[in-house]
Structures are given as structure tokens and as C-alpha cells.
């Protein structure tokens, strides 16, 4: 029951879903809709597992008085304070939305923007034209970067056109092939899971 039960459930739920979608008959269609519904309900509860893990990790650091435990304690206090505020006052609660809009959003936007500075140093390493591949990467990157700001059209009207062409044709071709390859990989993995060959999700327990 410890290994066979979950694999049987995986196979039955997967095959039932496929059959109900493929047949698309009035009898089977509600089955797919019900399974979809159940999926959403189960996924909704995963969230709480993350909160329990977050509490465990930070709580342990506080109890052991590890270095920087104050930050862990702060995290727990704010986490549960904010959850209580939201659950008691509702999503439309002024304090709840104020904290989200005026505290979380500026931090989130700024963290996102700090990546500009890190990405600059990454660009320096990636764009060093040490070989043909790196040189092509460099040229494509520079043309797109210059072509998509006003500087590009100020230098020559051909640069924005070249940038558009690179994005619309060679880039689309490369990304399309990657997506197709990922789709094939996804299908193979899904088949392995439904046939019970892929069991790595049980290895951690």
C-alpha cells in the first residue's frame, strides 16, 4: 500500500482523465470536469504545506538562537500577523491592501530592478567575444538592445528594423524548436508517469 497504492491512484486518475477528455461524450465530460475540480481543491491545500515548512525552518532558527535569529522571528510575526489581518478583515480590508500596495510592491519592484545591476555583470561575462558563438550572441544582443531604444533609430533607421527581424525570425525559429523539444519531453515524462515507470516523486519519503 505504501508504493503500489499511490501508483495505482496515479494511473487510474490519469487514464480516467484521458478517456473522459478523448471520448468527450455527455456521460464522460462531467468526469473530466469533476477531476479538474478536485485537482484545484487539492492544489489549494499545498499552500499551507509551504507555510508550515516556512514556520518550521524559521522557528527552529529562533529556538536555537542561530545567527540572525531576529530576522527569522520578525518573519514569523509578520507572516502570522498578516494572515490574521487578511482572514479577519477580508481581502478588501484597507490595512491588508495598504500593506500589499505600499510595502510589498516597492520592495518587489526594487528587488526586480536590482537585477539590472547583476545582469550587467552577467552580460559582461556572457558577451565577451572569446569564440564564434559568443561573438554571435554579442552581436545579436547589441543590435536588439540598441534597436529597441531611441538611440538605435537616431544612429540609423536600419538598426530598429534589424532588431525586429532578429526577434521575429531567427529568435522565433530557435524558441519554437525549444518549445517543440520541451513538448516532446513533457509527453514522454507524462507517459512514463501514467505507466508507472516514473516513481521519483516517492523517493524522498
Amino acid at each position, binding site marked *: 500500500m505504501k508504493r503500489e497504492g*499511490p*501508483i495505482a491512484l*496515479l494511473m487510474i*486518475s*490519469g487514464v480516467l*482523465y484521458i478517456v473522459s*477528455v478523448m471520448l468527450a461524450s455527455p456521460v464522460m465530460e462531467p468526469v473530466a470536469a469533476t477531476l*479538474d475540480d478536485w*485537482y*484545484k*481543491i*487539492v*492544489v*489549494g*491545500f499545498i499552500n*499551507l*504545506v509551504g507555510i508550515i515548512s516556512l514556520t518550521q525552518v524559521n522557528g527552529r532558527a529562533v529556538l536555537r538562537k542561530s545567527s540572525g535569529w531576529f530576522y527569522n522571528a*520578525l*518573519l*514569523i510575526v*509578520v*507572516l*502570522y*500577523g*498578516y*494572515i490574521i489581518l*487578511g482572514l479577519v478583515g477580508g481581502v478588501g480590508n484597507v490595512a491588508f491592501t*495598504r500593506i*500589499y500596495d505600499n*510595502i510589498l510592491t516597492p*520592495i518587489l519592484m526594487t528587488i*526586480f530592478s536590482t537585477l*539590472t*545591476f547583476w*545582469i550587467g555583470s552577467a*552580460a559582461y561575462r*556572457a558577451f565577451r567575444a572569446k569564440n564564434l*558563438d559568443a561573438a*554571435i*550572441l*554579442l*552581436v545579436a544582443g547589441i543590435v*536588439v538592445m540598441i534597436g*529597441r531604444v531611441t538611440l538605435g533609430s537616431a544612429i540609423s533607421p536600419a538598426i530598429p528594423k534589424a532588431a525586429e527581424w*532578429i*526577434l521575429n*525570425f*531567427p529568435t522565433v*525559429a*530557435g524558441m*519554437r*524548436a*525549444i518549445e517543440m*523539444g520541451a513538448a*516532446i519531453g*513533457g*509527453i514522454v515524462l507524462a507517459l512514463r*508517469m501514467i505507466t508507472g515507470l516514473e516513481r521519483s*516523486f516517492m523517493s524522498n*519519503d
Partner: protein
Amino acid sequence: MSNDIWVWIGAILTLGTYSVLYKDNPVYRVLEALFVAILAGHSVVINWFNFQKPTIVNRLGEGKELIVVIPLLLAALMYFRYSRKFAWLARYPMAFLMGIGAAYVLTKNLKPMFLTQARATMLPLWVPGDFGATINNWVVVLGVASVLTYFFFTVKKTGPVHGFSRIGRIYLMIAFGALFADTVLGRVSVTLVRFQFLLNDWLGLGI
């Protein structure tokens, strides 16, 4: 300078977050803790009002849809992962999610991710009277075919196949260069918005 307390708070938070560019410091670590806590807390509240409450209170309580008990019990098994003795019970909800996820990939993802992409690549290699379109179609068809060859690892690539896969590698370099540049520009735009907030909304310099 702004008189709005929330603009001041936003400015302090922005400068505090930027302080990590110099080095890790206590202000940044406080903001980091706030960020994680508020984001996680927000997800719990939104999840409750969007998923758990409509299911438990509305459907099971008022609607008396008893069938909802099945996924709820399945979801509850997830919390056995914290018990050493019964941790294996947590495999059941995971197995259910994986089964539906795999079936979803097989039934719904195949068309948009593979068939539509393959069909979009079936372009005419000769467009009468439009040399530019002909070249562009060749670029796309050659690119997709060569990149797929580059990712073909079943047999060792030698001779013309190796040469063709090399073209695929060049396509990938162009694509990665262009996408990297696009990402850089996106980040720079966000940085400019933060600087505009600091200079205009907070300091009122009207730049």
C-alpha cells in the same frame, strides 16, 4: 518633497532594498524578511478566499455537495508528511496531482505546444513576387529544423548532420542574445520607474 506618508515609506523601502548593492546589511535583511512574510501571508489569504472557503463553507456547508469530501480528504493526507510513521500517506495526494497533471499534458498541451508550432513552421519556401518573405520563411524553416537536430541526442552526430546541428547552435546563440537583450531592457525599464518614483513622487524634482 512629498507630504504623503506612504510615499515616504515607499522611498525608504526602495532605498533600503537598493542598499544591498553596496553590501548585505541589517536593513536589507529586515526588508527581505518582510517581503517573504507578506508575500507568503498574502498567498494564504487569497488561497483561503478563492479555494478553501468556497469549497468548505459554500459547497460542503451550504450546498451539501458531499462528493467534495473526497478531494478534501485527499488534500488532508498531504499533512501526514510531518509524521515519520505515516509520511507515506502524503504520497496519495501527490500521486493524484501527478496523474491529472500527466493526463493534462497528454490531452491539452500537445496541440498548442507541438502541433500548432509544427504547423506554423510549414511555410512556403517560395513566395512568388516577394523575395523578402521567401528568405524569411527559409530562415524560420531552416532554424527550427537545425535546432531540433542540435537537440537530437539519440545517435552521435557526424558528417552533414553535425554541420546542420552546428547551424542550430548558431540560431540558439542569436535567440539567446536577443532574449538576453530584451530581458536587460525590461529590467532597465523597471529601474527607471523606481528612479522616477524617487526623483518625482518623493523628492518632487519634476524630472
